[in-house]
């Protein structure tokens, strides 16, 4: 079966985020960018499905500027077969992203679409679910286990109260949580091989999707600073402070 994986180029997980002095946005100039960590988990899951003989082809799609090809190449080096970049310089909202992905799903007709549950920049946690609604496909969000059996997939989800498993008819959509797998690193020979794998570039217009924005960022500010307090010498002093100074015990 064919698996489609969506990946996003975001600020590197380890970079300290700074807000621009004019409060218009965060400063992404000269900042290290990388694949969104949840998307890495999505790619890894697809590759494991292929290694198990469940998946036959892995198509990776990304939406973003030309340089987002880097994240597609990384996915190809990890084991995906071909890539599609929907190239745009515009900052897109989730609904538009979902509409673009819907167009790719209609064209590619994958049996399984795997996405990260959220990107670590906007922290929206929306795209997979929106894609589910637009395509009419069922979803297994926040997945910690994915088991494909015949024309069904069982997805174990990390929920507030513990774990919940849902059974979905294929085709279906899965969004990844942290403990679904531990992504591998790409080997040097595979990075070299990835350079020769096909990567198609299309525009939103090619897919017949109009870019529409309904949200305006009024301002972006740094969070309220929390200043370091005091060090206490021992547990007795700690308990005394909590009882008499902070009055929280």
């Amino acid at each position, binding site marked *: 079966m064919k698996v489609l994986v969506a990946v996003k180029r975001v600020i590197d997980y380890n970079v300290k985020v700074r807000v621009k002095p004019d409060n218009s946005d965060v400063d992404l100039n000269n900042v290290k960018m990388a694949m969104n960590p949840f998307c890495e988990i999505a790619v890894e899951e697809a590759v494991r499905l292929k290694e198990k003989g469940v998946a036959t082809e892995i198509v990776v799609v990304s939406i973003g500027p030309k340089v987002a090809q880097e994240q597609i190449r990384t996915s190809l080096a990890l084991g995906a077969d071909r890539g599609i970049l929907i190239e745009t310089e515009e900052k897109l909202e989730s609904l538009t992203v979902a509409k673009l992905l819907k167009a790719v799903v209609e064209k590619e007709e994958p049996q399984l679409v795997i996405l990260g549950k959220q990107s670590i920049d906007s922290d929206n946690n929306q795209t997979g679910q929106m894609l589910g609604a637009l395509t009419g496909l069922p979803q297994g969000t926040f997945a910690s286990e994915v088991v494909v059996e015949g024309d069904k997939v069982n997805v174990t989800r990390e929920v507030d109260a513990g774990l919940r498993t849902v059974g979905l008819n294929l085709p279906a959509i899965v969004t990844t949580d942290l403990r679904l797998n531990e992504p591998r690193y790409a080997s040097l020979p595979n990075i070299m091989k990835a350079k020769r794998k096909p990567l198609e570039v299309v525009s939103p217009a090619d897919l017949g999707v109009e870019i529409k924005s309904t*949200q*305006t960022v009024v301002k972006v500010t740094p*969070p309220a600073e929390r200043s*370091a307090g005091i060090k206490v010498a021992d547990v007795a002093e700690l308990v005394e402070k909590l009882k008499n100074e902070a009055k929280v015990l």
Partner: protein
Amino acid sequence: MTILVIAEHDNAALNAATLNVVAAAKEIGGDIEILVAGEACGAVAEAAAKIEGISKVVVADSAAYKYQIAEAMGDLVAELGAGYSHILAAATTTGKDFMPRTAALLDVNMISDIVAVESADTFVRPIYAGNAIATVQSSDSIKVITVRGTGFDAAPAEGGSAAIEANAADKTSATSAFVSEELAKSDRPDLTAAEIVISGGRGMGNGENFEILYKVADKIGAAVGASRAAVDAGFVPNDMQVGQTGKIVAPSLYIAVGISGAIQHLAGMKESKVIVAINKDEEAPIFQVADYGLVADLFDAVPELEKLV
């Protein structure tokens, strides 16, 4: 302007997170109605009707909503919600699951995880794991919003007497079904509602060692949480994770034990009123946000803490 709040519940009891959502709805202003979708959820509807300031409770009682499956909920809320100005739900794993489906079906964008209301169309939400705070204005005809509970003080659970109305819509999902669940069993308070939270990190070493935290927790009525590192290492289950992608907590007292303080963890607890850090590494970043820091071996300090509280 009428706001539809989607109740969070387990068919037996109303989840307290709903009260925070109602509080957010009150800040937006207008009539507030509550949808209770579940199976045999009459008691939840009655509790919802008692919340102060609610004008109507709509109950969709059907096997289709027993487990609040996203496909069924998304369809139901999109159909019922079409006439409202705002649709609000808690930013729980249930709300996060179905609300984006609802938004897409209504052809609108969604505003996730709001922590403040500026006006009826402008909301404040953390981005980049809370390292930046965005104020976002929406021009969508219906605002579909999830609410982070820690941003709003709970609305009073008593004082209202809203009419309860039944809705017969059946949106049974044809493509998905509940299979099974493993729910955490604990007599301790719920993490997101507890007044005191004590959390363990990688420094706990293993799952058995969490026992020393449970002992302190049981003595002071605290909930027990964990850092991602402790959950990834398999010490404790995922439902205990506090952080950017786990639970967001803001108790009166948060005690971080053996937690270094990665930004993803801080994102889940830095709104706590008082933060205590116990860590043997005095350079650990957790001390930069702690009101009271104790540089000590947790295996000495925690048992002593249990004795002294």
